[in-house]
């Protein structure tokens, strides 16, 4: 009678084991550090919640309709900020995207420089940029536009460069072989391949920017965020309820439309 046995287990290399143990220990250390560092006064927090709950939560669900007019104009301003900002970014990101694409520049140094610029821009949160621009141009909606424009350029440039790197270079080569000049290659070889995805990403970024621009007002850069911070400071939770409702509705509608358009483009 033959005996059946399980196939031999793959050999574990010692290096991998050490790596795994190190990572595990690091994670444990991270959590120890975290839980030692954070101390929350649970008693006080609990007390506050008990005191505040009925003052906040029910009011959020009974919006103050008398502020509808103000909220409408604020949210419209938010949409304008997001639109102007993301369109600016969509254009600003094109040269940066080409710069960071390996197959377009052909030089490692330029590509690395482009990638570094883009990730440096991405590391700034939108709100921090808004703070800087509020100091520069004053507390108005245009500071928001600039913050959104710069903030979105980082992400769009990265996505663009990935699109450019993934194009079919055979077409470009064939055109080169047929004697097309650089501009012709750009217009007839590269652009038709990248435009749908560029548009799709730009619209996607617009979606994100609607969310981002709705909070810029917290630092004075216009839009509905201004109303949010006033409502919070005045403990006017009814108005906050209306603002929340407006944000939810606008974001949902724009997400829906943009998803539709993007599906059509790509």
């Amino acid at each position, binding site marked *: 009678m033959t005996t059946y046995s399980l196939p031999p287990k793959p050999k574990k290399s010692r290096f991998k084991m050490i790596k795994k143990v190190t990572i595990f220990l690091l994670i444990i250390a*991270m*959590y120890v*550090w*975290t839980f030692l*560092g*954070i101390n*929350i*006064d649970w008693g*006080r*927090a609990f007390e*506050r*919640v008990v005191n*505040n*709950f009925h003052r*906040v*939560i029910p009011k*959020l669900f009974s919006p103050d309709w008398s502020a509808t007019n103000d909220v409408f104009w604020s949210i419209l*301003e938010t949409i*304008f*900020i997001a*639109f*102007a900002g993301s*369109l600016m970014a969509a254009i600003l990101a094109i040269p940066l995207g080409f710069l960071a694409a390996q197959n377009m520049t052909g030089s490692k140094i330029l590509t690395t420089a482009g990638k570094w610029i883009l*990730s*440096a821009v991405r*590391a*700034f*949160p939108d*709100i*921090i940029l808004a*703070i*800087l621009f509020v*100091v*520069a*141009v*004053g507390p*108005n*909606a*245009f500071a*928001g*536009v600039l913050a959104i424009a710069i903030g979105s350029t980082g992400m769009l440039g990265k996505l663009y460069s990935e699109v450019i790197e993934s194009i079919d270079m055979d077409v470009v080569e064939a055109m080169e072989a047929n004697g097309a000049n650089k501009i012709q290659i750009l217009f007839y070889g590269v652009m038709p391949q990248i435009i749908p995805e560029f548009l799709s990403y730009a619209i996607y970024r617009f979606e994100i920017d609607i*969310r*981002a621009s*709705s*909070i810029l007002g*917290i*630092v004075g850069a216009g839009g509905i*965020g201004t109303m*949010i*911070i006033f409502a*919070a400071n005045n*403990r006017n*939770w009814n108005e*906050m309820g209306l603002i*929340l409702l407006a*944000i*939810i509705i606008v*974001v*949902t509608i724009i*997400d829906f439309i943009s998803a539709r358009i993007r599906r059509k483009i790509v």
Partner: protein
Amino acid sequence: MTKQNNSLSLKKTPPIYPVKTKTQITIIFFVILGFYLFSMMYTQREMVGGFGNALGNMGVVIEKFFPPNLKVLPAVWGPMAQTIQMAIIATTAATILTIPLALLSAQNIATFKPLYVFTRTLLNILRTIPDLVLAVIFVGLFGIGLLPGILALFIFSLGILAKLISETIESVDMNPLEAMRASGANVYQVIFFGLVPQVLPQFTSFVLYVFEINIRASVVLGLVGAGGIGLVLDQQLGFYNYPNAMAIIIMIFVVVIVIEYISNKLREALI
């Protein structure tokens, strides 16, 4: 376009794009351009001095913010560490709670349709609320401190994570699971040897991605009183102490870049 003076081409070459598409695109282009110009005008209506003045002001700003006062850095390291800790706790909590939520909003697992639709809708609504707005509400509930910040990050990241992971679960190859069931594996065996290996790499990668988002969000939560470095930044801006503010901003920048770099390397190693 190049002129066709080839004797072989008798007919006019057909246009690359049909006329209808061309008019459509032109109209869309002008609508977008018009809306853009209007937006630019509308958002600049309150600006003193217009665009040119603003550009001139940039120089003044750089003078105000520079040189950053790097002497404050040791003093603000505490709040910065707290900010990172906030993000860690929120991400961990969201990771744990996202598993049941993601299972409930995955179409191939939650076969009970109303439940699936309910969780999906809830998550969609949750995702539309910006993190800072959540923080504002939680600060109203709990008062100023770290707890509202952690809760805001937690709720916000839960929405993103549950959506991403439910999509991963939906794209799982169900055949191995079925095969295992057919050869007599019990439910736990199916989950651990069939489902988990397919989902785990994506899952970890998404968790790291959400951790990055949380780090970036947590540094600004303090602006509305939800603890961390943002609180210090807000104070310094309130005092118009721009060199200190710039030092804090640079610190935030460095921390975000370092954490993103580590998390990127980890993600590359995983997938």
